């Protein structure tokens, strides 16, 4: 092979993309050619130098900021889409009167149901949600935002615009209530404010103290939060709550996920601690769990965590 080919192999080798056969060929060639060997070592040094001296990855605040801006942009896109759909709906109405009549009938039925469900009379009879009332004027505190003018020309005496009206709602109920749980899980997964997500986990934690069996919806939400929340504090709290429950396959999988995937070293340590606590409770681990931990030991860059994982595996064997 030509020298240029070996140079290419050198680059691939540095990035771990060389198969074992070519690696052997390269090693043999480099032993015979010190000049190229020097270049090869230089490439390795460059790679390690860049890795060691690069600023950390995207911060959580930048991600949160980007998500917030994206939500606004997507909302605008959705508004644009809805206008198009309205135009299409009007067109359909002209083309197919029977379908339009059906649609109107459904709309009418919906309005009737809506009226009986959300009228003040219905509220008095135990409707779950109540608008938050300002005692001074006894009206819901609706905030108006994102005003969009459709027709701002007032020459004909009329203007037309759209806006988002958000009214705060108030709810009080038992934490065991499925509706309350749905709201809590929704808040934990969708609320953009990390503080609110944290409060939600805390609410679940208080409720779950001294309980060993967990509601499946709450459990899957906590696991989802532990494995995907952008805020390490929320993930940590979710892990703490999950530790309270009976150890099972889902919790074990989530802990292994944290150990192998979470970029926060503190959380990886917390997951190892959780395994240790579970072991102290007398739980036996199967071979596959031990193998998964061993795999992680090989991959772990942090010496402290690696040592903790090694000790854990040793303890399991004892």
């Amino acid at each position, binding site marked *: 092979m030509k020298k240029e080919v070996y*140079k290419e192999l050198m*680059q*691939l080798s540095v*990035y771990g*993309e060389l198969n074992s056969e070519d690696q052997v060929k390269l090693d043999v060639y480099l032993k015979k050619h010190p000049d190229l060997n020097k270049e090869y070592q*230089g*490439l390795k*040094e*460059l*790679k390690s*130098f*860049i*890795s060691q*001296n*690069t*600023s950390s*990855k*995207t911060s959580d605040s*930048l*991600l949160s900021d*980007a*998500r917030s*801006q*994206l*939500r606004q*942009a*997507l909302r605008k*896109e959705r508004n644009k889409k809805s206008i198009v759909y309205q135009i299409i709906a009007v067109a359909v109405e002209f083309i197919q009167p029977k379908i339009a009549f059906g649609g109107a009938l459904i709309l009418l039925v919906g309005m009737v149901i809506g009226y009986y469900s959300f009228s003040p009379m219905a509220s008095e009879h135990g409707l779950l949600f109540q608008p938050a009332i300002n005692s001074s004027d006894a009206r819901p505190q609706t905030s108006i935002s994102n005003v969009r003018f459709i027709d701002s020309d007032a020459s004909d005496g009329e203007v037309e615009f759209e806006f988002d009206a958000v009214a705060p709602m108030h709810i009080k109920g038992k934490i*065991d209530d499925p509706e309350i749980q749905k709201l809590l899980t929704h808040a934990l*997964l*969708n609320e953009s404010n990390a503080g609110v997500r944290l409060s939600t986990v805390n609410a679940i934690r208080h409720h779950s103290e001294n309980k060993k*069996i*967990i*509601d*499946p919806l709450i*459990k*899957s939400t906590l*696991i*989802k939060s532990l*494995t*995907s929340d*952008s805020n390490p504090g929320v993930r940590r709290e979710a892990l703490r709550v999950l530790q309270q429950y*009976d150890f*099972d*396959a*889902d919790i*074990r*999988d*989530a802990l*292994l*996920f944290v150990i*192998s*995937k979470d970029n926060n070293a503190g959380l990886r340590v917390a997951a190892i601690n959780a395994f240790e606590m579970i072991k102290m409770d007398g739980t036996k681990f*199967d071979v*596959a*769990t031990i*193998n*998964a931990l061993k*795999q*992680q030991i090989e991959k772990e860059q942090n010496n402290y965590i690696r040592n903790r994982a090694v000790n854990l595996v040793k303890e399991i064997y004892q």
Partner: protein
Amino acid sequence: MEKVAITPQPFYSIESLIDKCSHMAQTDTELIEQSKAGNFSAFEQLIFRYDKDVLNIASRYTRCAEDAKDIYQETFIRVFKGLSKFQQQSEFSTWLFRIATNVCLTYREKKKRNLHLLLDDDNDDETTAVVAVSDSETDSQTFGNEISYRIENALQNLSPKQRLVFTLRHYQDYKLKDIAVMMNCAEGTVKKYLFEATQKMRIHLQDLYG
């Protein structure tokens, strides 16, 4: 409320576990179908599985937080608009990262054009253009110490494609074949960009590590 006792399930490989955990609620396919049906929450859930990676790529590529956010937003707006036509013949992530790499590669040209428009305008654009440039410089200076600043500068001296390949391979750890799929080109071409990028980086940084 009725409580359900959970029985431990058989245990398989770590990969399947990771996969199971990360898709515990719903698969990408399910979320895509729901998104297509107009469920916006499903769409958010879908994109928030990958958006950190997209932002990481954009940040590395542009080294400017504002530009990275622009690329991030443009990518997901395109995904939102195009999802109805996405036939799932490839993985969603592959399709998404292909869009992200396209946006990265076209972003600079688009920005240059916008800057020229600003400079050509007769109004108070001189100030605006200066502000736009100086903002970018300020961002670049926040990237940390002198060495990392030199590395970032060396990256900016690469061509857009070289920089993108280097970013995806070195920082995001994607395999060359995956990068080829994302960039819609041959693996050999990706190798070529990576080798050229590495050579240039060596020249720029030789005095620091040699």
